[in-house]
């Protein structure tokens, strides 16, 4: 069993900054976990309007966003500022994805919480001893004072996180997923933002006239059910445990695939076990911070996917076996 340790030299700038900090928020020595709890509430409750820059694999994308919650109902709009001008408008659980260049609107139901941040720990997250959480320093993002919270992994099996929280509201103005070499793998930041301002209804209206568009109502084609399975990984990295097991019917197929979700409280890894009727591709794959690894074991195709380093999905996939 391999437990690679994260090099001590990977966070020197953060440590130096921490030692040198003297700003007011840090001086108060608020528990960084309290900041994360405040953040969880702020994400759910804060109304905002602004411009978000998303960066992944060195590519930047700008989005105009409007978000408000009234009487528990989420209302929001996201408009891509480049390319095809994609708009997503959400009122409660009903979501309209508007594709101006296709003159089409896709209507669907979302029942999960909604934020733009790909790597944000939720308020329910309670990660254990595999990470350290600390306040690093104060900074400015989108013209506002922030405090930088760093979530540092103890080993190389998971990524780190940096979250810049608005000092006044604890709203996350910037998030980064940090790789083992200390660089940002994915990043979301506000270039400008107005917090807790009154959002006018017109701000949530479509930017284009959709009267003559083709409207499509698309139900989910993905069906899942809770099951028990004899499949397990015999070499899980420290801190990971199975948190859910489902039988999934994949879109376009009637075959039920076993889906085991492992989590260390912050990073999540899905392992899919599918009957293998014919040889399929094996090996690693990556998109931004998401890695996957496929292997053939006992006549099944095993695929591990997660926002963790490549070594983690490979180790878990290769160690899958029947109890």
């Amino acid at each position: 069993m391999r437990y690679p340790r994260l090099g001590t030299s990977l966070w020197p700038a953060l440590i130096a900054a921490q030692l040198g900090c003297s700003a007011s928020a840090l001086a108060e020595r608020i528990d960084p976990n309290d900041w994360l709890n405040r953040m969880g509430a702020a994400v759910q409750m804060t109304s905002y309007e602004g411009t978000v820059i998303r960066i992944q694999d060195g590519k930047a994308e700008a989005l105009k966003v409007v978000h408000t919650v009234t009487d528990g109902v989420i209302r929001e709009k996201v408009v891509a500022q480049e390319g095809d001008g994609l708009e997503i408008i959400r009122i409660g659980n009903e979501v309209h994805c508007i594709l101006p260049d296709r003159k089409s609107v896709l209507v669907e139901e979302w029942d999960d919480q909604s934020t733009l941040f790909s790597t944000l720990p939720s308020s329910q997250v309670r990660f254990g001893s595999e990470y350290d959480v600390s306040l690093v320093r104060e900074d400015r993002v989108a013209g506002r004072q922030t405090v930088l919270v760093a979530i540092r992994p103890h080993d190389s099996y998971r990524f780190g996180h940096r979250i810049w929280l608005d000092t006044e509201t604890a709203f996350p103005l910037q998030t980064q997923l940090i790789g083992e070499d200390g660089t940002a793998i994915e990043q979301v930041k506000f270039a400008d933002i107005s917090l807790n301002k009154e959002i006018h209804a017109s701000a949530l209206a479509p930017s284009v006239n959709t009267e003559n568009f083709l409207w499509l109502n698309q139900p989910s084609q993905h069906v899942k059910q809770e099951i028990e399975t004899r499949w397990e990984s015999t070499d899980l990295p420290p801190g990971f445990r199975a948190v859910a097991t489902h039988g999934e019917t994949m879109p376009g197929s009637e075959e039920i695939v076993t889906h085991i979700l492992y989590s260390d409280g912050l990073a999540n890894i899905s392992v899919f076990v599918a009957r293998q009727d014919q040889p399929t591709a094996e090996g690693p794959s990556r998109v931004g911070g998401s890695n996957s690894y496929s292997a053939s074991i006992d006549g099944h195709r095993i695929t591990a996917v997660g926002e963790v380093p490549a070594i983690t999905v490979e180790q878990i996939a290769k160690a899958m076996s029947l109890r």
Partner: protein
Amino acid sequence: MNDQIRMQISAFVDGELPDAEADLLLRRMSQDAELRRKAAEYLEIGRAMRGEASARGIERLQERIAAGISDEPLANEDVPAEESAGRSMRPLVGVAVAASVALIAIFGLQLSPGVDSTNGIDNETAVAESTEDPAGYTVPQPVDDQLIQMRRIHGASTAEQGANGMNARLVNLRFSEEPPAEEDPEEEAADEAADESATLP
């Protein structure tokens, strides 16, 4: 920071700074977090908001500058700028299910401007293999449709655990590039969509 430096950074971001001056500026940026922040600001906001064409090689510098934003030591400091990136790969898909399935089934999706398709790998025929890029990084390639679906389901599952919904949809909608699915439950709608898409650009 004086105006001259700002102008230098601006010219650098626009790809108009002579090589010798660019090298000097890069060295200064490696030592000066403020310069890196300013360059990153020009890169990220200016280019993204105004839709400017990216300067040659500038995207490759973005990783170095992103490292500067986070106050971390620059990775591969000794690697020339032109060689330090090349890590970007063809984005595969996002993670949610319903929207992309419908969009792909009915319309198909175009590559967004942010998608790097320069590696020329056909998604339908791609196999699990690694590409050695000029910087020496091993870049795993996307594999097949089944993996795409698994990534989506994983994203939906983690969205249930946390609060990633909107981002999952965005990633999905922006980067999906699959071939059309085999069938659509609403035959009439599919026919209409086919007719409609045939008339669209």
